[in-house]
């Protein structure tokens, strides 16, 4: 393939890739820039790009007004907790579907995916009432459980496609050597699927981190994660764009950094199994 790529084509692809990348990143960049402006500068037309009086006042204000660390900790617990719990359930499920398929396996997978097609608000009231009945409104336990359930179909699907790539013969060999089912999954399957599991983990942490329906509707103060922290800076009467941007920047910073460091795993995991 490399031989066919001329310098010109390479250049064109590079330019296209950068254009697409920068376009996708632009809203984030704009949010970060706005967070360093004054409120007056934030709404200025024409907008200013880099040449404005950089200020940290919005960050100071946000720190004074809300407890960032508590919200961030809640976000970590909810996203990591729900993903780990999800993996615990999904690994055996994906194993059984990948290595002992029946003629209904495809239907089960489709049925799982179909649960994602229902708009979340459709089940808001039943779930809200269940949480209230169990005394779990505004609690991390409820959010971990619910987000795990919401992301479970995706986790199962991703793991299923990774597991499908692993030759069943290896597992069979392990069985021949006398490995029990549990040992087979823990010592043979899991190590081979580590890249797949890692990317599933990362992607689902990101999804759970950004989840802004259940986390807003089922929390008040104690369990409120960063989504609620951002939402508290939005206002229909009053332009607080700079403060809102500062809050948003603080909320996305941890996940952005995590994304940068784990880029390789993410990309490798997402393209795992794409080339046959």
């Amino acid at each position, binding site marked *: 393939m490399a031989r066919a790529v001329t310098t010109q084509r390479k250049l064109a692809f590079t330019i296209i890739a950068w254009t697409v990348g920068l376009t996708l990143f632009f809203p984030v960049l704009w949010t970060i820039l706005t967070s360093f402006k004054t409120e007056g500068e934030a709404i200025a037309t024409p907008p200013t790009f880099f040449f404005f009086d950089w200020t940290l006042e919005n960050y100071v204000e946000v720190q004074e007004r809300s407890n960032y660390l508590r919200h961030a900790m809640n976000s970590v617990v909810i996203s990591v907790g729900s993903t780990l719990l999800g993996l615990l359930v999904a690994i055996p499920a994906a194993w059984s579907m990948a290595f002992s398929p029946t003629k209904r396996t495809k239907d089960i997978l489709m049925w799982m995916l179909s649960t994602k097609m229902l708009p979340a608000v459709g089940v808001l009231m039943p779930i809200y009432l269940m949480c209230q009945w169990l005394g779990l409104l505004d609690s991390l336990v409820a959010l971990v459980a619910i987000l795990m359930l919401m992301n479970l179909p995706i986790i199962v699907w991703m793991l299923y496609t990774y597991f499908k790539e692993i030759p069943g013969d290896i597992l069979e060999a392990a069985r021949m050597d006398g490995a029990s089912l549990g040992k087979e999954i823990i010592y043979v399957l899991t190590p081979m699927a580590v890249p797949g599991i890692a990317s599933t983990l990362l992607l689902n942490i990101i999804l759970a981190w950004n989840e802004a329906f259940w986390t807003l509707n089922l929390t008040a103060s104690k369990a409120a994660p960063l989504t609620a922290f951002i939402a508290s800076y939005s206002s229909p009467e009053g*332009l607080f764009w700079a403060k809102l941007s500062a809050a948003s920047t603080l909320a996305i910073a941890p996940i952005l950094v995590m994304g940068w460091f784990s880029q390789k795993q993410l990309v490798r995991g997402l393209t795992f199994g794409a080339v046959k």
Partner: protein
Amino acid sequence: MRFMPILLGTCAAALLAGQALAETTLTIATVNNGDMIRMQKLTDDFTAKHPDIKVEWVTMEENVLRQKVTTDIATKGGQYDIMTIGTYEVPIWAKQGWLVPLESLGADYDVDDLLPAIRGGLTVEDKLYAAPFYGESSMVMYRTDLFEKAGLDMPDAPSWDFVAEAARKITDKDNEVYGICLRGKAGWGENMAFLTATANSFGARWFDENWQPQFDQPEWKQTLQFYVDLMEDAGPPGASSNGFNENLALFQTGKCGMWIDATVAASFVTNPDESQVADKVGFALAPDNGLGKRGNWLWAWSLAVPAGSEKTEAAQEFISWATGKDYAKLVAAKEGWANVPPGTRTSLYENPMYQEAAPFAEMTLESIKAADPKHPTVDPVPYVGVQFVAIPEFQGLGTAVGQQFSAALAGQVSVDQALKNAQTLTEREMKRSGYIK
């Protein structure tokens, strides 16, 4: 989903045990605006006086707040001990038995000091169900420099004809100066707040005494035609997606000659840190049409205690602190008189220090006095509310009608068609809800 109840159940026991040990903590749901944020910062004053009470704030954007507190109160969720709600919710929720009547605000609270128009909107069957934290109306904000340049003189109480004429005269589209900026974004609290209040001054009403929708009457046609024509001649482009914030940005950057909106905007547009036109803004009452009603609305963000709360005594102590006379003095001492929450107490407007510090004080008071939620229209109506109809169906109805009117402003449908659609959909909803047969 099968294992979820089991999982939730096991964890519930642990959580409930934890809650029993907690101290008295008041969870307060509130909106994100300047006055509320200031109150949060001053909470230490309250906790110093009441060391046994802890205060936990939940700040939300208005629409999110409404959605969350409605869910909570309708299911008796008990997540909040104090809710910030508006004049629309109070009469409806009080009738449903969802709110605790505020009967222990203390001897020195002085309920009679509350402005009658505001108090009236929060009282059901002679019981106060919410205490006003700040009240607002709407008024005209205009650019004194542009008026001077055009040789116009804004009266204190303008008519719609004058406003329309002035708007057309000031408009200079080549230089991006538009005579008037008005709400166009669809929503019961967006364009319909403005248009319902404006319709009142044109002699229109939502319903007659028998709950029959009135969009087929000439007064509504006159209102909507006037609005659409005026915005076409003198309004900014894309006005059908403009709400409060969009118009605020336009006005602050010098693109609007006039803006009719909430009185709370006065403090924003006159703030030199945010507004490029801070020293060139004048205020006037909302316009009228000589029919005895002005086109201004009335709203009060108020604190109420939901019936699901188990801490009603502590909650009322907090409300008494936050909406009492001493709170005004506390704000004045820390941040100056201009930052005291406006529009709730007569004593504030009689205070010479406040009159001096807030140039818009008199206009705000006059605007609030000019609105009467119990008799909002020229002809009699069966409902309470100036820019809304205090029935549960109104949120959905107001937004659906607002979408029709926003489409008319955008030129997607004609004024006649928009009114016809509004009439049909309102009739259908009112029949379905059993108001009419």
